[in-house]
């Protein structure tokens, strides 16, 4: 898909063509859903977030500035919504995470799980913002520049945060026993 394709779809949606929005969903719902999973850590909340994101996209499509790439704008809304959802859940989540931190080490808390579960668990030890950066870089394979726009931070800050987050993740994964699988 190209930038032009997205813009054509958007023009159709703005002119009242709902089927164009269905096409937009086909293109991007999986991306948004997976970004949300990466940030909030579970599929149920990710489903709610995805729905909210696309409703907001629809309602605010007229404010979209075509000078930006559509998917960057979409990612930005998705990340904001995911981080906000995470903050709303924070009290509960922090209690859970605190329990993990105080009752056991990451190594001890890691159950027998596959790599995906391991990385999912390890991600939860990062701050939501750093988790979002890691998700955008490694799940979505976005460039530092794109992540900087989405997160509204400089590329330098993105790089510093990503480096720090990756090292922390690496230490947790190795404690979880990933070394044997390398």
């Amino acid at each position, binding site marked *: 898909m190209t930038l032009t394709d997205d813009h054509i779809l958007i023009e159709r949606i703005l002119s009242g063509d709902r089927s164009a*929005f269905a096409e937009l*969903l086909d293109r991007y719902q999986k991306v948004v859903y997976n970004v949300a999973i990466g940030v909030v850590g579970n599929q149920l909340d990710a489903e709610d977030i995805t729905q909210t994101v696309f409703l*907001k996209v629809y*309602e605010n499509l007229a404010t979209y500035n075509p000078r930006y790439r559509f998917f960057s704008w979409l990612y930005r809304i998705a990340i904001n919504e995911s981080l906000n959802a995470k903050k709303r859940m924070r009290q509960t989540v922090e209690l859970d995470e605190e329990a993990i931190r105080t009752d056991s080490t990451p190594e001890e808390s890691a159950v027998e799980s596959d790599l*995906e579960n391991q990385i999912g668990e390890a991600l939860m030890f990062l701050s939501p913002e750093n988790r979002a950066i890691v998700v955008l870089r490694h799940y979505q394979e976005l460039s530092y520049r794109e992540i900087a726009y989405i997160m509204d931070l*400089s590329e330098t800050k993105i790089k510093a945060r990503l480096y720090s987050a*990756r*090292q922390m993740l690496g230490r947790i994964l190795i404690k979880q026993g990933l070394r044997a699988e390398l």
Partner: protein
Amino acid sequence: MNEHDLDLLHREVDGLTTDAENERLRSLLESDHELRVAHDELQAVKVAFAAFQEKEPPPGLKDAIMRALPEQPPEVVSAPPRSWWAALTDRILTPRPVTLAYAFALGVVVAFAVSTTFIPAGNIDAGDVVGAMGATDPYTNDTPREYPFSSNGVAGSVGVWETDDHFHIAVTWDAEGDIVARITFDERALSVARTENVKPAERLSTSTAPGVVELVGSGSIEHVVSFAKIGSGYVGVQIVIESNGEPVLDMIEAPRLIEPN
């Protein structure tokens, strides 16, 4: 292990290293235990992410979203609302009460555009201005973003850059007739610190009202508006440029919500 070596490790994870760098890395790993530990950690991350499979959204999600869409098509805004941040609060991001404002020192920063095409270097001396105002160098923070426009016989650009304490907008245009540039902002978050003609203007009037800075002028204009970040709210601006009442540019730049501490 030094920072350069660590950077090399991370760039290797990102797949950005050259063959020569890979060779150098292999050599370093043989001699530097600390670097090897860091390497193993990053390789663990690489392996774990390589195993990641994107999840398929639930089958009914698309239909649920389509059913939840409003009946009417998205509203096309012909004239942008002044309080765009309020619309964002209501419609894009979760509303959050402003309960605590924090104060930044209102040291005035005069900033200037960076791109030589945007503001020619000969028109302003950064060192003089920045030094005179006792401000920090705006270059030390985020990279300026530039948005050129050309429509209805008007050519120009908008440049935006930001420091920790300030948010700067540089507007340039070249037009025979009157051009109106209207910058609206969230007063909770930003306060106009300074507006300045970078280039002597043939005719330019500047007016400020709560939440709005308006520039009206003709000829070759280069003007910088600097905002101090003063509290919680949206750090960002809406910029509308009109020629003969017709918009030639309508953009919202960097609406980022700063929440109360």
